[in-house]
């Protein structure tokens, strides 16, 4: 049953609700602040709203109902691996002994936390073929930054400070070049070949004594496996450079093949993708950083070390790039990731990526019946479709298809990425979705494409069932309104 439009669209801000003095009390009254501190260091006013718990509960429950998560429906957002987030992981992360442990607790009173981090690290090393992992980085982008800082320091130690170029394929995530720039590296963008891959011959043409790092995703963001990765790695290594693996797509190969065996020296994982950490509407993430043996001593501090049956945080690592965050890890996420490993074991994780690839290919062949798929071959965990032809015929763009999907209860695929495919829709179903769900989505998409040919205006007007229609992004950017202000 849907409410009248006027009710559904009215959503006052928390600042527009409440009355001073109405807040539900959680603590006793405090004495006036002036009884503890000189007035000149205190603030005059604290202009925050007072609301009852009931009103706050209704407010944020209402906001949650205007938000789409995996728990609500199918979320085929390419490159984001929106798989089921098991509830047991959240229950374990909130155990008192994990949730209430202070980061400065002495190591011998934090053995459980350190064991979690160690078990997770060792399992990652085996799964991905790395010598060590740091669990410090807060997200994939921060792991990229840490990895490039490692490369910079490594080359400085070797007296190779002329290595100032980072090679990035044109299909790469935007974080790759942005991270490179934060380390003072110059970015060389590499054009993909006709098959959507990096050509080893092209790599040979660009590598040289100035090459620091080549950053790659495998499978790449088109969902295609770079089967000549060894030749690429050889070319980079022969030139003296390092290979970095962007693990955003690790769900495609986990347990079946390992970045370490492909020749990568550094890599990150997005446990909020591959290892079921809830993405939380944009974070917190968790970006473990793996390295081959020759780079272990450069990892950020602290690093969890095992001495016999005891664990400790090691801060005394002279070659380390230093810490990258306030404390040691997004630890609650390490708990979730380890619980996920226990839920699957090696065999289960191997199956996970196989089923992810199965689901993606099944959708690919079904969708190819009515929408262009620019790379019509076996893909890995995701694939791209293009509305380019459809747009020529009907004027309906990828954006319009995405908005029409929202109207029909689905999250839209990633749009307009990677940049090399016009009118791109990047679809990643993940392994936790059933055949029935995939079939349902394909049917809806087929119907949308049909509608484009018969009644394109309906799609240009979409979405109409959501709490708001298409949002004026231009106005948002031209007249930035980034906060509420009390009306005078």
């Amino acid at each position, binding site marked *: 049953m849907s409410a009248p439009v006027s009710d559904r669209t009215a959503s006052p801000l928390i600042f527009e609700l409440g009355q001073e003095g109405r807040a539900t009390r959680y603590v006793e009254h405090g004495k006036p602040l002036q009884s503890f*501190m000189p007035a000149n260091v205190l*603030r005059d006013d604290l202009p925050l709203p007072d609301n009852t718990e009931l009103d706050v509960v209704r407010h944020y429950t209402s906001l949650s109902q205007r938000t789409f998560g995996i728990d609500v429906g199918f979320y085929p957002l390419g490159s984001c691996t929106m798989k089921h987030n098991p509830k047991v992981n959240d229950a374990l992360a909130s155990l008192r002994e994990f949730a209430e442990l202070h980061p400065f607790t002495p190591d011998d009173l934090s053995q459980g936390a350190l064991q979690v981090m160690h078990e997770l690290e060792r399992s990652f090393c085996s799964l991905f073929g790395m010598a060590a992992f740091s669990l410090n980085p807060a*997200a994939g982008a921060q792991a990229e930054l840490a990895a490039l800082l490692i490369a910079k320091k490594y080359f400085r130690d070797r007296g190779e400070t002329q290595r100032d170029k980072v090679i990035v394929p044109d299909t790469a995530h935007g974080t790759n070049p942005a991270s490179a720039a934060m380390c003072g590296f110059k970015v060389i963008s590499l054009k993909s070949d006709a098959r959507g891959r990096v050509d080893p011959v092209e790599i040979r043409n660009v590598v040289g004594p100035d090459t620091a790092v080549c950053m790659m995703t495998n499978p790449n963001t088109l969902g295609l496996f770079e089967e000549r990765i060894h030749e690429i790695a050889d070319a980079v290594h022969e030139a003296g450079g390092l290979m970095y693996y962007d693990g955003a797509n690790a769900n495609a190969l986990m347990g079946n093949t390992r970045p370490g065996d492909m020749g990568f020296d550094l890599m990150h994982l997005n446990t909020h993708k591959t290892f079921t950490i809830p993405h939380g509407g944009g974070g917190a993430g968790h970006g473990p950083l793996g390295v081959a043996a020759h780079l272990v001593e450069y990892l950020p501090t602290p690093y969890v070390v095992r001495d016999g049956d005891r664990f400790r945080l090691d801060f005394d690592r002279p070659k380390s790039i230093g810490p990258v965050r*306030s404390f040691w890890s997004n630890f609650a996420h390490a708990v979730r990731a380890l619980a996920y490993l226990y839920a699957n074991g090696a065999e289960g994780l191997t199956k996970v990526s196989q089923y992810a690839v199965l689901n993606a290919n099944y959708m690919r062949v079904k969708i190819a019946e009515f929408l262009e798929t620019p790379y019509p071959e076996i893909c890995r965990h995701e694939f791209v479709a293009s509305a380019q032809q459809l747009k020529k015929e009907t004027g309906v763009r990828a954006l319009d298809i995405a908005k029409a999907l929202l109207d029909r209860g689905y999250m839209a695929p990633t749009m307009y990425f990677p940049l090399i495919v016009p009118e791109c829709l990047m679809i990643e179903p993940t*392994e936790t979705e059933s055949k029935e769900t995939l079939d349902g989505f394909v049917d809806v998409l087929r119907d949308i494409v049909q509608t484009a040919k018969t009644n394109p205006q309906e799609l240009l007007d979409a979405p109409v069932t959501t709490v708001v229609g298409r949002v004026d992004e231009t106005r948002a950017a031209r007249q930035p309104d980034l906060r509420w202000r009390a009306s005078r």
Partner: protein
Amino acid sequence: MYTPHTKADIKAMLEAIGVGSLDELLRVPAELKLRAPLDVVPALPEYQLRRRMEQIAKRNDGVEYVSFLGGGAYRHYAPPAISALAMRGEFLTAYTPYQAEVSQGYLQAIYEWQTYICLLTGMDLADASVYDGATALAESAIMAINATGRQRFLVSRAVHPNYRAVLKTYCDGLDVAIDEAPLADDGTTDLRALAEMLRETQYAGVALQSPNFFGNVDTLDGEALQAVRNNGAVPIAVVAEALALAALATPASWGAQIVAGEAQSFGVPIAYGGPYVGFIATTNEHMRRIPGRLVGKTVDNAGRTAYVLTLQAREQHIRRERATSNICTNQAHCALIATIYLALMGKTGLRDVAALNLERSRELATAVANAGVRLRFSAPFFNELVADVGRPAGEVLSALRARGVLGGLDLGRWYPEYSTCILMAATELTTSGEIAKLAAALQEVTRVGAGV
């Protein structure tokens, strides 16, 4: 396993694809096949995996101790209403709100978060969050570097040592040099020395933390602010205990142009260090230099109020190597938790919590002094204080531990000159009984001639 595939499903799907088996589908080149079995933790059914994790958790004995640990991570009361709301699946399992029409709720919540941070700091705008307090400082320094084109940064030694270390890690990448302003004897930044440094050298920015790492109020005074302005450096305020914003004069009021903070205190679990939630707030002048996501208010095609991610031309997915930062995933869910915390506490509750922190920490100060231990500093403090135990702090902390008390942080770890000093925190959750226990133990172990 959380996969739905029946044998019949697999068969039907493989047939539709036109391949005979999963192996054929995967097509892993021979040289890339696994050469050895994987060494991963064993698979367990859910009830056993819970037992296993609960057993591991039990090894965190630290949670059973009376604790005065602070130093950038604080134990505060979090009403259960927070998790009841924040753990709703619609919020928890959403991705970054790229599709605004089905993300209005989360976008509005982030707009409310941005507003709360502005109201608390006195600044014009705030971002949708960064990783934590330390990276907020590092990213703020980058804003200042980009704003001034200068390659040198000044930070007070009273800023959290971990934050300064992360600042250094980031600045190394950009070949930016860092100078540190010295401490005055009262446990604040030596503002005269700071002003002198600003007269000598051009800096991109200058960062002070208040309350600083020792718990003391530490802001620019008129003369120091003038020196910053004459220099052209961007003044940056660091906040590691966000609760103090409810009591202290806003960073904007003492001249900060950027506030780099940590909001863990607002209901985010202490969780052995993360995830927490950093924020950056600034003036309109620096709007287009701020890193990460921003939510803006706009209208939809029917003129209805709507929210959307905005000013994305600053960001990595549009601007790539010319972006203001590489940040993509931030700490949105922790920002949501903090927003709900602030909504529940309200002005009245937040003021009360701040007052209770002031009260308990002063009760702690009195008890420590009565136990014969000297308070090292004289400056006004918020909820942390420094006790000088007159002998190596590590020894005293070990002896306190043996009596069931985690007495605080050994400042000698970061400040050799304070190797006999302990940083102690008291919050609204610290009881008089706990303070009495600490005081008794302190008296026992610091008694002249007492062996520790």
